[in-house]
């Protein structure tokens, strides 16, 4: 059975397979580590679920500011009525950082003219989804933004 099998392969094609397979294995063993090397290792992020977004009295009504939420920007807005709202400041279109526009009285993305209302809903322009909203809690002087789970 075995002998039969080998006798059907000529020396020539054996060498072809041998060399071809060897070359493929070599290429693979070079490429695989290189590809893996190129892809950056995942850096574990401490999941943070709340952060001090600002201080009471820091924001006048009808204004907003960007704060750090872990490694992403968030935006704290004080509505013209004086309420606080907090959202992720990462635009749902192509990830630019949004800003509060006091002339529009809502949130705006400069990159492709995306508009969001004061509940984070995408009103106009290319953004396909609302901004992620954070719960706002005031504890003493601090305004906390809390990720909703």
């Amino acid at each position, binding site marked *: 059975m075995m002998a039969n099998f080998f006798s059907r392969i000529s020396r020539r094609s054996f060498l072809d397979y041998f060399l071809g397979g060897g070359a493929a294995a070599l290429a693979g063993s070079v490429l695989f580590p290189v590809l893996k090397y190129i892809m950056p290792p995942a850096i574990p992020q401490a999941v943070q679920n709340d952060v001090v977004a600002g201080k009471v009295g820091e924001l006048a009504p009808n204004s907003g500011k960007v704060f750090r939420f872990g490694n992403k920007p968030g935006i704290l807005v004080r509505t013209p009525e004086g309420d606080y709202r907090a959202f992720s400041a990462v635009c749902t279109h*192509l990830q*630019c*950082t949004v800003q509060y526009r006091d002339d529009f009285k809502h949130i705006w993305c*400069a*990159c492709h003219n995306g508009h969001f209302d004061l509940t984070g809903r995408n009103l106009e*322009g*290319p953004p*396909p989804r609302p901004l992620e909203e954070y719960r706002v809690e005031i504890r003493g002087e601090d305004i906390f933004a809390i990720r909703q789970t």
Partner: protein
Amino acid sequence: MSTTVAKSSFWRERFPIDAVAHFFAKKTVPMHRHTIWYYLGGMTLFFFLIQVGTGVLLLLYYRPTAEAAFESVQFIMTKVRFGWLIRSLHSWSANLMVAAAMIHMFSVFFMKSYRKPREITWVSGVLLFFLALAFGFTGYLLPWNTLAYFATKVGTEIASVVPIVGHDLLLFLRGGEEVTGATLTRLFGFHVAVLPMLTTALLGLHLLLVQVQGMSVPPQAEAQAAQRKPMPFFPYFLMRDLVGWLVALGVLAALAALFPWELGEKADPFASAPPGIKPEWYFLFMFQTLKYIPAKILFMDGEVLGILAFGLVGVFWLLVPFLDRRPEAGGRTRWFTVFGWVAIAFIAVMSLIAYVVPQTF
């Protein structure tokens, strides 16, 4: 010049210099009413060489980290003697190179110079053009200013829209989930090592093929070219090339000196994107198109469709010589010419709108 070199037996014994000299002595350029477009390829090459020279100079002081990049460019521009000039030349020449390459590419397209047997010349040329855009994209972030930061953020985010491999592509480009110092270092590596290496190889192939195949005569000008005598490349056409390069150098120097490239403000990942943000002019038409595509088309995100469409057009452009089979038989292919004009009109209109329409709305 070549004769003295060829006479010295030192070189003859070591290199087939006679064959090379002979080749250049025989090289000619066809003469007809479209001959002017033959200068654009050499012009692109000229700007490329300037990029190499100024790029190497910038490398002496530039530092590719998020902490030091902006400051090192500032140092080049304010402390290093003529640093402002070198950086300005590098930025301006980059733009002129893309412009020259674009004109070169479209003229080749309309003259149908991609006809058999020049398919590979066209493909290598289009790839070189894509590489030029990649140079523009990777170089843009290196000064680490606000505009560059958001341009890179949007640009790399676009890559993530690609089906299946999108997220891996994003990680590959950013060196992580976000645009950070890792991205800067990575794009720097692409800009000064990977892309130059690929470009050198492709450029070698492209130029070699042009030499071996000779200049293509456009079908529209065949009759005229048959009547007029071709011009010997050496020294006549080369002299004209040199005049062109001298003019280009003058324009470049004037632009660099009169409109020094601005540095802007250092990138702050925790600041809002500034109003009026837009990419370099050669990406502008895509950027403007993205603004008009609605958020949802049927069940898909609008930008996904837009970006896929641009990708398809890119692939189509690359494969033009294999799709436009008719010119071989001598026939004219209307559709490809029409497509070319539509593309130019689209690019022009979209870019114009991006400049004219106020950005803050």
